Structure formats: C-alpha cells, structure tokens
C-alpha cells in the first residue's frame, strides 16, 4: 500500500496555500550534547563547535553551533508544515548573518512569497532570530508539491 498525503492530516494542500501566508512558528534550543551528536553525524570535527578554549581564542564567547545545524533547524519550520510525505525541498539556500550558540533559542519564522500552480511549487523566505530578537540566519526554500 502506498501511503497517501492523508498520512499527515494537518499538511497543507497546494490549492489552500496563499502568498503572504505565515507558517506556524517554530523554535529550538540546541544543547552542547546536540552539537556533539551533530559533529559525529556530519563528520565535522572543527573545534569551534566543541572546544570552549578554542572558540574563545577564535573570538567567540563560547562554542558556536554548526551553520549546517542552524540551517537544518530553520528548514524544519517548512518540513514540519509540509513534510516530504506531501512536498519535496527542491532548492534551499541559507545565509549565516551571525553565529548561533547552544543554550540560546533559534526562533524561526517563514512566509510564502510566491506560488506557481502549474509547476506545483511554492517559494518561501525564512528567518531565524536569537533571544535578543536579532536576526542570525536567513534562508529561501522552494517546495515542490507531489
């Protein structure tokens, strides 16, 4: 049996999506343990992500989240709303404006900026801010609905 989009009852349908729509907000606070898990999973052992003294010597207040981890968390704002059961991420880009840190919430928002009904794609703009409300990360995503 092939699972249908009804597997994810809350997932949006392309015809219901409108330009300007805000996605449900999402936030996540990485822990230092998560950085270790991520370092192993990506195979990235750059010390700025686990060695406090190294990070301080590099001019940071402490260890810094992996950019790719912040990106993965930001993308979950989109994939929690429209998971791969209903839509594929066909393009994504991320800009790291400021570093993000373990113990600090990554507060994510996403907005639909374009919809191409013929191609069955939706473009979104994403932003993450730190607990002080300063933008740390921006992203763009194109979703293709099955």
């Amino acid at each position, binding site marked *: 049996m092939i699972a249908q989009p009804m597997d994810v009852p809350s997932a949006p349908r392309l015809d219901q999506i409108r330009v300007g729509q805000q996605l449900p907000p999402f936030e996540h606070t990485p822990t230092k343990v998560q950085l270790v898990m991520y370092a192993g999973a990506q195979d990235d052992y750059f010390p700025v992500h686990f060695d406090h003294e190294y990070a301080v010597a590099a001019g940071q207040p402490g260890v810094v989240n992996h950019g790719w981890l912040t990106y993965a968390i930001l993308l979950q704002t989109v994939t929690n709303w429209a998971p791969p059961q209903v839509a594929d991420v066909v393009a*994504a880009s991320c*800009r*790291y404006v400021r570093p993000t840190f373990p113990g600090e919430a990554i507060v994510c928002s996403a907005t639909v900026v374009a919809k191409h009904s013929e191609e069955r794609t939706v473009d979104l703009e994403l932003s993450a801010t730190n607990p002080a409300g300063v933008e740390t990360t921006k992203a763009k995503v194109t979703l293709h609905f099955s």
Partner: protein
Amino acid sequence: MSVLTEYADLLRQNIGLCGKPMTTEVEKTAVRKFARAIGETNPLYLDPEYAVTTRFGAMIAPPTFVSALMSMDLPPLPDPPVAFTVTLHTDDVIEQFAPIKVGDVITSVPKLADAFVKTGRNGEMLFTTFAYEFTNSDGDLIANVAWTEVQRP
C-alpha cells in the same frame, strides 16, 4: 590593487579546478543518527518499514544530509599572501533533483566556483565559493551544493 584582490584574481584563474571525489554509501544508521542530531522525528528518516510504504519506497535523508556527503579534499589552490585570522562560513545553497535514499551510493566532487573581495567595517574580506556535484552510481545528477566562506587577515 591590494594584495588580497590580487590573490582573488589568482584564485579566479583556478575556477573549475576540482578536488578529489568522495563516494559514500548512504546507510540507514547514518541517516538515523543525522536525523536525531538535527531533532527530526519524521518516520521517513527513521523507520524503514514505514518508509517502504510511501512513494519513496525506502528511507530518505533530510535535505541537509548532503553536508555529510561532501568531499573536504578541496582543489589545490595557490597559498594566500597573508595569514587569515578569521574564517567564517557564510552561505550554503542546495539544489536537489532527486531524494537521497538509503542504499544510494553518492559521489561528490568539489570545485572552485568563485573568489572575490569585499570591503566591510573590518577592512577587506575574501569570499571563496566551492561548488559540488552529487551523482549516484548510475551517474544521475542528484544535487548541486555550494558553500561560501569569508576570510580576513
């Protein structure tokens, strides 16, 4: 013309130069570990018995799993004329043409894509972009990924 802009010009003569490829078999355990590390709970990334019932027919990897498949054997480039004290990762761009599934054998090859200098509050900064093609064992292009770093003396 500054030493850094001369270096960027020299780097640009090497645009297209490739590093060494890396081939990885996408394993179930590696995808699960990656999904858990980013906090994902979607069973498509965790449960092969569920995934086989979906349109994918197998467990798939989250979109940023490409970061775990990138060869870090970068193209051999001329040595910089100055020591860099700051290196920061600024951008990651993904174009995904097909999902990455457990069992795929993926080869990534890095190449120099761009180098340029911008002047900011802290003086001149060198931006360097490396672009990757990801192909499967049939030679199909699965994804393009580009990352950019900025360095300053």
